[in-house]
């Protein structure tokens, strides 16, 4: 599973509007890549296209082999689940194709272990619609990880999580990528999380991949000012990772 994963994307459209120019992406085994960009840049569109949920056909290959849509794990941005399925049921559905009339005990045990990793074992028998937004989000992340995808796509996976669980989830994603050698591509808004946990950053802006590189090279004050219209302070935490402190630009405040 250490081959490079290549993605060939045609130009992506929403209606008649072109959202993203055609491009090629390449991910190394176990790489955690952050996808960032201002609102409306097309991050969700890009992720949906890679997941095979857009009209435009996307080619994914790994080691010369085509990657099937079923091998991709995708967590969309809108995640509310209103069914009475239990959390354990929900996680097991991540491997729906392996379930039969009688669910194999080893799958149940694996699902339970996955819930333990995300600190959700106490919620295993609770109905999904009884959970808070953050709990649901973590349960759905557990489901996608349980699926053991060749490529994991996440659209704002920490949007509903408190600070502790944001850090825990990102750390878990890094550990998962390292253990399974499956790349992770996650759309994120929190640039400090990006700086801390991403191996590489893709900046989506002006209808194209405007930048592609390690966080320290991509998250520069000039680029952030240009695309996010903020005046950032880029500080260093005690572990050497960047911390982005955003400030509104003076011209924004006059608007």
């Amino acid at each position, binding site marked *: 599973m250490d081959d490079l994963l290549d993605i060939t994307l045609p130009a992506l459209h929403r209606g008649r509007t072109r959202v993203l120019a055609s491009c090629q992406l390449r991910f190394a085994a176990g790489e955690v890549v952050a996808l960032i960009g201002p609102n409306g840049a097309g991050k969700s569109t890009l992720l949906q296209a890679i*997941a095979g*949920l857009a009209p435009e056909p996307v080619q994914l290959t790994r080691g010369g082999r085509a990657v099937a*849509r*079923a091998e*991709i*794990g*995708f*967590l*969309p941005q*809108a*995640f*509310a*689940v*209103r*069914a*009475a*399925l*239990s959390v*354990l*049921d*929900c996680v097991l*559905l*991540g491997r*729906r*194709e392996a*379930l039969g*009339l009688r*669910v194999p*005990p080893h799958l*149940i*045990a694996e*699902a*339970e272990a996955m819930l333990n990793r995300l600190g959700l*074992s106490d919620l*295993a*028998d609770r*109905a*999904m*619609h*009884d959970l808070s937004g953050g709990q649901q989000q973590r349960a*759905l992340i557990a*489901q*996608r990880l349980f*699926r053991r995808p060749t490529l994991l796509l996440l659209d704002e996976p920490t949007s509903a999580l408190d600070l502790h669980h944001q850090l825990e989830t990102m750390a878990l994603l890094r550990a998962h990528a390292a253990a399974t050698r499956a790349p992770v591509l996650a759309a994120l808004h929190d640039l400090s999380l990006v700086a801390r946990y991403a191996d590489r950053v893709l900046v989506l802006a002006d209808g194209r991949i405007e930048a592609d590189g390690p966080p320290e090279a991509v998250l520069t004050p000039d680029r952030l000012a240009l695309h996010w219209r903020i005046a950032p302070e880029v500080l260093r935490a005690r572990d050497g990772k960047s911390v982005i402190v955003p400030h509104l630009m003076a011209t924004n405040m006059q608007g």
Partner: protein
Amino acid sequence: MTARPVPAVVRWRARAARQGVAVLIAALALAVLALFDLITGPSGMTPGALWHAALAGPEGADRAAATIFWQIRLPQLCMGLIVGASLGLAGLLMQTILANPLASPFTLGFSAAAGFGAALAIMGGALVPLPLPGWLLTPFLAFTATLTATALVWLVARARGTAPETLVLAGIAVMFFFQSAQSLMQFMASPEVLAQIVFWLFGSLLKANWVAVSVSGTILLVCLPLLARDLWALTSLRLGEAHAAALGLDVAALRRRAFLITALLTAGAVSFTGTIGFVGLIAPHVARALVGEDHRLGLPAAAIAGALILIAASVTGKMLSQGAAIPVGIVTAVAGVPMLLAVILSRKGV
């Protein structure tokens, strides 16, 4: 000392056992109610006489008893079981693919279409050049009209996609079309013909015979294995369309398959009995209360619940009226309202 947590496998098996027992109890209740339905009727025959008629067979010496048992009560019971099961299954499918707990097999206009077909047969059967006996013409045209409604909704889905909103809007349009056509025919009909049309629309098991049982039963048996292949896919759809699609499910294809199966089950049910409301709406909720959202047990539970509701309505209709039994469609309509209110008031989630 804190207790060790029970492993998920053990809890899972325990839950499956509880749900299995619940379905078994429901099936036993259905068996008991079916027996009660057999021995209940306006003829006043004793259970002993009925037992002897059953043992003697359709050609038994007591012709009256044989006729009542083999040509009236037993086909009506079988029809009730098949129609109830079909409507229960169709109802659960509708509520799953439309993600709407208030959907029913009639949401997409199938009932109105069947009523139009029946009215057409009753009013102008002599004008329809089909080599069918009169008693078969009405169900044939009701069935054909239901499939026509299916085709109309299908065409809209092909053109605009299978999103729940699209299907429901198309179904509403089809329903109003056939309802207005049916109303026009009722307006034009003579009083005698109008009475026949209205009686058909009540929904009744009185029209049951072995041909009807064979046709409806065959349709149900054909649909069952088709449903079996999509048990987990249907359960996945309960997560919501976005998540089901993200897990690799072809949601549009699943909706089309479920839609066609629902149309077949509904057509097979209403063509011979007329419109029997609320069974397809309430049975899925009973099933969910028994076994939750897992369609592996949910589908058989919905079938059993649908049959239970219909046979209970049949028994009630016979017991409430001395002489001719009250049509089951009227009983389910009256009893369905408080049951629907109970569903609405107890709703948690979707």
